[in-house]
């Protein structure tokens, strides 16, 4: 008896310890101090100077993990936008006349300073946005620097880009970016604009303005001529004033499809060049021969990366019916291990939802999913008491008509649908007005190529997901917008071709 008990005890203990988390990581917090000094209030960056707004309205940006106000910043008025566009127009004459090799050197300088200050920027981004430090440090910042480095090299090679000899810049680019990748979207917009000889006025999102303002300091450190880059903060009203401004020659927008549609309408007949990166509802297709463990990692990366705040997120999982149970079991096991919490903890997988408004939208759509009859599942995990949080969530029994299968949720919510044949998978995957991205999981090469060629999406990841690179064009089909960012293709939006 005693002997038996002894042999039983360690087993029971092992089970108990595993449940308590044998492999729990101790907290590994990054220091918020690494973000550098955050001022209590910010104005705009116009003509190379930080200036006060002409208006008195101020907005607040909060840390979504703590709900603490980080700083106040100016709501850009029409007059502020006017000033910024005028500064950019003034700078355009000299900047566009500069030899490409010189413009290149400024961009290389910016890339290098971003690398030098990447820890500071990663922490600041994490605090302002709520995304895990692991992602800002290992994904956002390296890519931001890489984008400036890549487009720097194009500045003196534009004659060879395939848009004819001596392609010309357009003028002042008005750029409006979202809150999900504040610095990366800034890089996607500013790097090709400057490389091609345009000057810019950029409006960051109203919930994440801090890193764009910090980027303004980097422009000064790099000695960038005054007015080449201008940052005007504010909400949608400021964005609308910028895109409608008569002296803006090119508008670039990344954000929701409804806003993109409104901008396209507003610009009709104006002859301003327009590029749009809009919403998505990507299908992530898992065939029956897919390696389950790899596919599960890809699915998790596809939908829970950046809290699902990704326009190309794999938000519709299409599983071949015969492996549905096996795959979902493995996926749930994996989701059980996701760590939700403090974005500044280096072990955190899922950080905070960016804002109360976004959390409300995710909550509303998931409630609609339940109301429409889909089955909801989340791992049990503790959420912090303050801040905006949402458990990684899985819906099964989803039909194509459900709102959670049609509308972009922009949160850590995965809708699972099934299919029997490859043709049905393609049919379901394409059954959306969006066409930004898609995923394919199968060990059979010919099936990858067959499927990829039939998917109406701008980026297709096969046996991987959410990979980005400055040399690789990114952008959507159908109502996910037009134009491409990245690569040689990304130059076209900023050239008169």
């Amino acid at each position: 008896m005693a002997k038996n008990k002894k042999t039983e005890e360690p087993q029971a203990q092992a089970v108990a310890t595993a449940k308590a988390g044998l492999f729990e990581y101790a907290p590994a917090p990054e220091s918020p101090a690494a973000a550098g000094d955050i001022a209590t209030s910010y104005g705009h960056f116009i003509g190379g100077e930080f200036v006060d707004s002409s208006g008195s309205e101020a907005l607040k940006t909060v840390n979504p993990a703590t709900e603490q106000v980080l700083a106040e910043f100016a709501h850009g008025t029409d007059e502020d936008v006017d000033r910024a566009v005028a500064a950019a127009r003034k700078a355009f004459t000299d900047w566009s006349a500069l030899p490409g090799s010189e413009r290149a050197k400024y961009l290389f300088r910016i890339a290098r300073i971003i690398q030098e200050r990447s820890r500071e920027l990663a922490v600041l981004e994490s605090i302002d946005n709520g995304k895990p430090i692991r992602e800002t440090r290992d994904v956002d910042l390296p890519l931001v620097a890489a984008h400036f480095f890549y487009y720097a090299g194009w500045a003196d090679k534009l004659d060879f880009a395939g848009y004819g000899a001596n392609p010309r810049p357009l003028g002042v680019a008005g750029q409006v970016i979202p809150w999900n990748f504040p610095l990366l979207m800034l890089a996607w917009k500013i790097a090709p604009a400057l490389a091609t000889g345009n000057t810019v006025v950029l409006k960051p999102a109203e919930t994440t303005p801090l890193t764009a303002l910090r980027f303004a300091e980097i422009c000064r450190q790099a000695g960038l001529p005054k007015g080449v880059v201008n940052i005007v903060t504010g909400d949608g009203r400021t964005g609308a004033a910028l895109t409608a401004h008569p002296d803006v020659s090119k508008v670039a927008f990344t954000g929701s499809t409804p806003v993109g549609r409104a901008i396209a309408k507003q610009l009709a007949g104006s002859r301003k060049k327009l590029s749009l990166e809009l919403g998505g509802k990507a299908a992530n297709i898992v065939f029956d021969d897919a390696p389950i463990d790899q596919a599960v990692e890809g699915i998790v990366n596809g939908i829970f990366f950046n809290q699902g705040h990704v326009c190309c997120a794999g938000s519709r999982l299409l599983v071949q019916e015969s492996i549905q149970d096996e795959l979902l079991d493995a996926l749930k096991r994996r989701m059980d291990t996701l760590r939700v919490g403090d974005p500044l903890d280096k072990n955190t997988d899922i950080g905070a939802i960016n804002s109360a408004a976004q959390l409300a939208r995710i909550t509303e759509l998931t409630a609609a999913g339940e109301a429409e009859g889909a089955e909801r599942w989340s791992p049990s995990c503790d959420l912090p008491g303050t801040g905006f949080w949402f458990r990684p969530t899985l819906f099964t029994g989803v039909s194509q008509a459900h709102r959670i299968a049609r509308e972009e949720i922009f949160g850590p919510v995965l809708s699972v649908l099934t299919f029997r044949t490859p043709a049905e998978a393609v049919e379901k995957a394409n059954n959306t007005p969006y066409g930004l991205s898609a995923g394919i999981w199968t060990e059979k090469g010919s099936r990858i190529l067959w499927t990829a060629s039939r998917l109406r999406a701008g980026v297709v990841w096969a046996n991987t997901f959410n990979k980005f690179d400055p040399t690789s064009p990114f952008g959507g089909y159908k109502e996910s917008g037009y134009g491409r960012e990245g690569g040689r293709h990304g130059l076209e939006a900023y050239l008169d071709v």
Partner: protein
Amino acid sequence: MSDISLRLDVLKTYKLYVGGKFPRSESGRVYEVTDSKGQWLGNAPLGTRKDTRDAVLAARAAVKGWSGATAYNRGQVLYRVAEMLQGRREQFAAEVAAAEGVGAKKAAALVDTAIDRWVWYAGWTDKIAQIAGGANPVAGPFFNLSTPEPSGVIGVVAPQTGYGHSLLGLVEVIAPAIAAGNTVVVAAAADAPMPALSLGEVLATSDLPGGVVNIISGKTADIAPTLATHQDVNGLDLAGAIAAEGPGAAAALEAGAADTLKRVIRPALDPSTQDWTQAPGTERLLSFLETKTVWHPMGI
């Protein structure tokens, strides 16, 4: 009795070209077309919004086969169009002369250029992917390839003015779109639709699958907005929109296209000064192409 000739010409009943067939308009109506001096040339079918929607359906149905055809095959079909047009050179020269009021010699030269344009685009079908796509040197162990793919169904407002617009300009808006693998619905030049309607006969005998090109004559104010706002049209070429209805109408069409985020080619600011004999670039080939980027890990 002097105006009674010994032999009466057989006149042609001009018809729409939709889905590879030649329907009369759903309206059952025609409108008078005159030459540059006001002389009656013939009656053209008064195509309606319904005709336009039918044409979009036909164009959509043709997308799968045409975009899925090999580039080599598409090139040969486009070259075949040049062959067929060559065989009817004299007829088209007469129609262009009447439509645009140019002399016989100039009209023949315009037809020759139109034939050459088909040959030029025939040669593009299997090259466009190589200049518009390629391997991307990403920083990681990935195979990463960008390839262009057609946008789908393209609505076209054909050129209404400018030197050579009636046939050459028309070819310049149709050929690049279909060379890239799209299918098109064309609102023909309202005042000079004869070359366009006759081109339908050429296309029908050129191995071009039915529905790849659809040509509607009638009021631009009916046809163009239907194309611009249609949910199942992916791109819009407004080449003739300003000349047809004025800059305001062109802007309204662009605004209508925004609802479905169609890819739009805007018209030239002063289309009357446009010279369609000028060599085309690749703009119209590239405008209705999407870039698809496919990633795959590399490893053993």
